[in-house]
């Protein structure tokens, strides 16, 4: 078994094709078994999913795991995807659930770490380093549901209605979560801005 001369140009691989605009028919085609449509969905959404997962989990490796798991579940769940539903909230609901599961797993691991360990990024924070790093440090310090609501609203630009449909939380509760996240960010970042002129 085994070949003599491989040639990449002879074997074009569909997932190398770039996608600039999302074709809203792709989820429906994928639901009906069009594998190329599923590949295009992965190509299109992977960077956004990674951004959300990285911001939620604070770890590239965990983010990759969450996104991979999410797409496996998306594929498995396509038969239940309603064709009149919007794809974004459905995908992000699955991804957010994976992130929550990983956060819970990480919390259990963290529980066995000796109390008093310096949290990741704290040294940079004390040194007044990068402003963007400060944002991440504050974000990591927020309760997971506040972080999730803030990211979906202000980074992923989703409407409260979509976030409510995704998370099952009420609109008022979501607005409160986002407000508290914003308050925490403002408090710390205003301080950092003042310290660094």
């Amino acid at each position, binding site marked *: 078994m*085994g*070949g003599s001369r*491989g040639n990449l140009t002879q074997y074009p*691989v569909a997932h190398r094709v770039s996608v600039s605009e999302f074709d809203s028919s792709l989820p429906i085609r994928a639901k009906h078994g069009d594998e190329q449509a599923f590949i295009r969905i992965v190509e299109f959404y992977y960077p956004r999913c*990674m*951004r959300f997962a990285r911001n939620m989990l604070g770890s590239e490796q965990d983010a990759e795991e969450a996104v991979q798991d999410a797409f496996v579940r998306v594929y498995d769940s396509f038969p239940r995807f309603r064709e009149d539903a919007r794809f974004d909230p459905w995908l992000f609901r699955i991804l957010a659930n994976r992130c929550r599961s990983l956060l819970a797993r990480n919390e259990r691991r963290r529980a066995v770490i000796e109390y008093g360990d310096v949290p990741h990024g704290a040294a940079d924070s004390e040194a007044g380093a990068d402003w963007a790093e400060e944002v991440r440090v504050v*974000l990591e310090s927020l309760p997971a549901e506040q972080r999730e609501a803030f990211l979906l609203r202000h980074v992923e630009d989703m409407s409260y209605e979509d976030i409510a449909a995704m998370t099952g939380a009420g609109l008022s509760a979501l607005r409160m979560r986002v407000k508290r996240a*914003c308050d925490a*960010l403002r408090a710390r970042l205003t301080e950092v801005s003042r310290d660094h002129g």
Partner: protein
Amino acid sequence: MIMDERDETIERAAEALSALAPLKGGAVARVLLAVRAARARRAPVWLRVSWWMQDTSVSARAAGLMVAASLAVGFVLRGAVASDENIRLARTGGGIVALQPVANAPAEPQAVPVSMVFDLANARSVAVVGDFNGWDPSAAPMKRIGGTGPWSATVVARPGRHTYAFLVDGTMLVADPLAPRAGNPDFGGDASVMMVRTP
């Protein structure tokens, strides 16, 4: 009413978190391999047989194997009634079709080593991925023979039909040019088919 105020501080914070990292090489391929592996793990026996029957690209050989599969199924049905034998293999001139063991089956057929060779001069890395190693990109990395020659690796697979491909540079799935193509291209590119015989 809680106001959703997006002032300059929040604007800057959101901007800092909004950067989309460039897509790392192989990221999408790894997702597709994971989907394929998950699907393969969950597929019931009848569906695996169905996929096999879709492999029309192997034409005459496939036709022979389809006959063999039909005979094997018949053999299984008859055997299930007539005896306690649980592992069913049907041998033909075209190869061996291994059906999944039924309940209370004895040990599965022993996996055997299969040497794989693939020649692609400009590849930086090549790995063999297939249903026998869960489509795991790290399971069977290939090495150049003599440091500069064709890529080579030995995998272990149980007797029966397997689909596989070569993962080049962690990003591209390339079918084996000298093996029959799997008629169902599956995720992330083409795959090849091999039949592993009982040692």
